[in-house]
């Protein structure tokens, strides 16, 4: 019951945040909206017993990602709030059409009785209780290679950032 309440609240918050991201004219507001969403999603993780993930979500996103975003926003300038009028031809009708279509599809699917998890099984709480060591064990055994791969990922991120940011006037 409690979970239901939390879910409703957080869902509303998440959606609100998401909408803010999309609608807010000033990137700063968008960033704030995103932040809101991230937090509420983190809470939803907790509600589903994914403690570790939730933690990481907060640390990585709120801590690292969002900061980075804000830095860049500052760099680019906060006053750049974009106007609403659409310059691209057909973009708006197309967007509306797609949006409408998605709604229709969603509606039909729901009415048709959409089964989200056909392979669902009886839930045993401790099995999915995402404490750190419950997560760590598979991560460093079964998933070890994936874990190592993330190293590549980060190296690339670093090298790429350097390659792109490292700037010389007289070139090209």
């Amino acid at each position, binding site marked *: 019951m409690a979970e239901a309440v939390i879910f409703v609240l957080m869902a509303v918050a998440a959606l609100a945040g998401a909408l803010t991201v999309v609608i807010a004219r000033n990137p700063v507001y968008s960033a704030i909206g995103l932040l809101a969403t991230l937090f509420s999603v983190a809470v939803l993780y907790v509600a589903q017993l994914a403690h570790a993930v939730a933690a990481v979500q907060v640390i990585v996103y709120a801590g690292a990602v969002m900061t980075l975003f804000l830095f860049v926003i500052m760099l680019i300038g906060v006053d750049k709030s974009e106007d609403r009028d659409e310059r691209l031809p057909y973009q708006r009708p197309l967007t509306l059409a797609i949006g409408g279509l998605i709604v229709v599809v969603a509606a039909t699917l729901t009415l048709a009785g959409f089964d989200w998890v056909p392979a669902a099984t009886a839930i045993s709480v401790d099995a999915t209780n995402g404490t750190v060591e419950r997560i760590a064990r598979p991560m460093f055994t079964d998933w070890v290679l994936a874990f190592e791969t993330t190293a590549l*990922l980060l190296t*690339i991120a670093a090298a*790429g950032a350097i390659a792109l940011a490292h700037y*010389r006037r007289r070139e090209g």
Partner: protein
Amino acid sequence: MTTPEVSWLAILPELLLALGAGVVLLVDVEWKPPAWVLGGAAGLAIFLATGVTVVQWIEVADVVRADLAADLVVFSGLIVMDGFAVFGRLALLAVTAMGLVSGWRLIESTGRRGAEAIALVLLATAGFSLMVSSNNLVMLFLGLEVGSIALYVLAGLTRERAGSDEAAMKYFLLGSFASAIFVYGVALLYAGTGELEIIAIREFFSRVVVANPAVLMVGLGLIIVGLGFKVSAAPFHAWAPDVYQGAPAGLVGYLAGVAKVAGFAAMARIFLTGVVELEASWVPVMGGIAALSMLLGSVVALVQSDVKRMLAYSGVAHAGFIMTGVVGAVSDGVLFYVAVYALQLVGAFAVVSAVSGPAVTASELSDYKGLAAKSPGLAAGFSVLLLGMAGMPLTAGFVAKFGVFSGAWDRGQHWLVIIAVLASVIALAFYLRIIVTMYMEDAEGAETAVPVPVRWVVLLAVAATIGWGIFPGFLLDLASDALAL
């Protein structure tokens, strides 16, 4: 405490590549040596990786002969070391080597940034080679991202040119959009089956008949879109022409080549192994996309005046042809085709970089006027590659097309094959247009000096095109041995 189960041989190539990348980066930071040192290091890494891959091949053969195929599933199901993966890896390494060589002038010219470029190339290859061997969808996604992110950067390498930057931006935004779609599809598939491992998914479907598969269908659709984007199949191709044109000519060949190889390997693995049971649902969709790609690619390429864009659109068409093979469920045909095509692509872009310079964005058709007179060898080579892409007999392109078409026909996809052959005739038209420009119009400007590396790359590509065109047996055998688990 269970210790992780590790099979070094399976990941040694990737390790070597990563190692190479690391060395290059560190050495560069530390000593700033001349470019050739870094190049040597990279070359060594690739060479060793290739060697190891060959060893893997033998190993695979033995294991399969010993009928212990299950042993090839390593890292507790994250990746498999089957012939399919090995073949894909070989193709990737070949493309990488040739790509680096043909892009060498560019890398040198970008000075300090060259080191990062080399490192990124190596890492991207490592990522993609993990991707072709992954058996776990999340692992596959990781590999995909490792590769893709590196490619975003490479596309923007010469970012002082607006074009290059724009290309990077477009590639990045759309790419990550597609990745998000793909991984959401993975999530839904997971929701639908409770499995992340491709083989497990296959077993799941052979075991269970899902009563209400809507979520699976959505997931499948998203996965198709995600991979379709990577291989630039219509209507998810829009990025390709702009990126090919914007990215530095020296590297486009590599960019396009590896993405296609990895993308199709993954597609073949997922759809021909994982969800093969559901083909009744996805085959028509895949066929539709294939048909659209072939027609749209060929037709739009007709009216292009920039060779890079033309090649991009021809790439769209080729994506369609190869998907015809996926529809035809001939994984060996797909592998053969994609390998041959990737090599031809690298060769072709090597020519482009030689004609219009390695860093440029535009490569107008008019630059090729009378190339036959200015540098006959290059023109001849380019013609062979183009005819190969067009699928003229006696080139590998023909064998490849033949393979996928017959597969599709065998599956009763007659209409698709008909569209395919007609599309290949349309495509012929614009390949010929380039040849016309090179041979039948009068030269303007001075001799085109062909840098040695480009020479070699083109020569290699041509050799492959003709060699496998006349004696396809060898490669075809490899491909057909390389069946996915």
